[in-house]
């Protein structure tokens, strides 16, 4: 079969991904500043989280404002399994991932029949509802959260409290694997079906596309990925509570890199995370100080500016065609 534009592009993407992986693996070595290393770790985490969100929100077109739910499920599951039942996080995060996928299916099942804004609000409400319930649930320590005690340095337990560097590679692996999942899915039957449904549901159905199962598949993958990220985060920070694991601001922060970078694209979430997370973290650190709000103003203004100036995402600056509304670069 002759190579055509699709296969050529896919090959380029894979090579690009590989190069980026190597660069990112080498990145922290010359950087001694612990804070900066931590910043990169967070950026990588959000790159993965947002890429996971992107599968449901970008490719499948279902804008979820409640993804913190899956993050929280993963974080809590991993933390509880580790602190109470001695299950090492290297297993626990996958248990969390499975639970996250299941939760996404449960949420999607009734919610996918809702259109556009109704769906967004429904996910928001479900997220808030779970937040409230968890804040009052003794089993998960309610509002006080769960602390993961540091016993000893170990890869199996994903415990490296002294050095940040190992976590860099853990998060890099996460982001890389998620990217690879997105790459595979984008070129798979699901990827084509999602894009078709987003463009024209009636035409898709006339080609025997079953819309609902395809959305459920997207939900499960997305929820699972987000939950695994939550589990990793819990180990990294050593603490999880309703506010840090289930809040609306977290849901928004998970979605934003994809939105800002370019929904429905492979590189969008990475680019968006690389821009957004450092800005947000640094403005909190330098300006947020005593809660004076300037960091929020900058963050909010940045979101507005980017959403308006580059609705097709930052990837369009590099000539990458957005899957959503694909005429982006040609007509711009």
């Amino acid at each position, binding site marked *: 079969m002759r190579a055509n534009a699709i296969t050529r592009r896919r090959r380029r993407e894979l090579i690009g991904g590989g190069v980026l992986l190597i660069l990112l693996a080498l990145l922290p070595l010359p950087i001694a500043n612990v804070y900066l290393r931590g910043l990169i770790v967070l950026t990588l985490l959000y790159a993965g989280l947002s890429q996971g969100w992107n599968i449901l929100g970008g490719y499948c077109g279902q804008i979820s404002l409640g993804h913190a739910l899956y993050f929280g499920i993963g974080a809590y599951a991993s933390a509880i399994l580790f602190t109470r039942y001695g299950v090492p996080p290297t297993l626990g995060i996958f248990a969390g991932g499975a639970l996250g996928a299941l939760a996404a299916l449960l949420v999607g099942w009734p919610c996918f029949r809702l259109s556009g804004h109704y769906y967004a609000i429904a996910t928001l409400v479900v997220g808030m509802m779970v937040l409230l319930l968890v804040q009052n649930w003794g089993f998960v320590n309610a509002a006080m959260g769960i602390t993961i005690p540091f016993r000893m340095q170990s890869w199996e337990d994903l415990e490296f409290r002294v050095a940040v560097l190992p976590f860099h590679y853990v998060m890099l692996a996460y982001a890389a694997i998620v990217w690879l999942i997105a790459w595979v899915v984008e070129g798979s039957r699901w990827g084509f079906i999602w894009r078709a449904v987003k463009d024209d549901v009636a035409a898709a159905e006339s080609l025997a596309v079953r819309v609902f199962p395809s959305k459920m598949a997207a939900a499960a993958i997305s929820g699972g990925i987000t939950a695994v990220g939550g589990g990793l985060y819990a180990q990294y920070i050593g603490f999880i509570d309703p506010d840090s694991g289930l809040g609306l601001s977290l849901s928004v922060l998970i979605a934003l890199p994809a939105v800002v970078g370019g929904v429905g694209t492979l590189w969008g979430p990475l680019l968006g995370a690389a821009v957004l997370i450092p800005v947000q973290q640094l403005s909190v650190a330098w300006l947020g100080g005593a809660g004076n*709000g300037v960091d*929020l*103003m900058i963050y909010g203004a940045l979101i507005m500016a980017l959403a308006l100036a580059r*609705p097709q995402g930052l990837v369009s600056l590099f000539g990458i065609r957005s899957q959503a509304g694909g005429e982006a670069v040609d007509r711009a």
Partner: protein
Amino acid sequence: MTAAIVVQVVLGGLLMGLVYALVAAGLSLIFGLMDVVNFAHGELLMLAMYAAFVIHENLGLDPLLQLPLVAVLLFGIGVAIYRGLIARALGVRFNTGMVQIFVTFGLSIFLVGAAQLAFGADFRSISDGLLANRTIAMGEIVLPLAQVAAGLVCLLAFAALVAISRTEFGRALEATREDRDAVALIGIDRDKVFSIGWGIGAATVGIAGVMLASFYYISPTVGSNFALIAYVTVALGGFGSLLGALVAGILVGLVEALTALLVDPSLKQVGIFAIYVLVLMARPRGLFGRL
């Protein structure tokens, strides 16, 4: 638990419900008009509450008397937001739905930050005035005057909203919603209609905010809680339906109050969300939704 307490709680819920209804009506109006869900709606409420506070502190005006002032102020802010931000968001060629979700989200974050900068994160309140610290008693039932007044004012504002919808302007609003492109042909300036729509939507929230300021704590994040209830109320009642906003608002107020009484005060919102989920399963467009 006596009958009197139950009645008191129900009435309290009803009154809060009217406030929710008004906030939801503003949101529903804007959405119905141009398919824009304003995720900064709660922050508009917060601005109104701070405005009431500031005017009260500096000019000594009682919140009740401030109503026209703050309503006009919020009207102006609504128009400004439309012209400065939303008009641009609507002009975007791709991902319009998503862009306006996140543009208004960005705005809400920005406004919270601005309020924090201007007023600090501490809670404020208006502790004196015509309505403060007074109650109405009917037999064993005691209700704070401020809350009763809030409910009544919001009901009146709601009626005014309905009246506006019956005027020629209201019809222009409806026409613009039905067919955005065609209305230009009959001489309706779409931009102007949208601006005024946003103005009215913000003004209604302004009225609710002023009344709330009489008995609610004011802080930069106070808007987010009400906003959530507003989204739920609008979705429950059906986007674009004023009647839906009213019915859903009252329903939400009642459910919240009863859940707090019968289950647990800290879980009162779970009751709302549960009703929301149940209704949406049966009717995805909400109780009276047309869009």
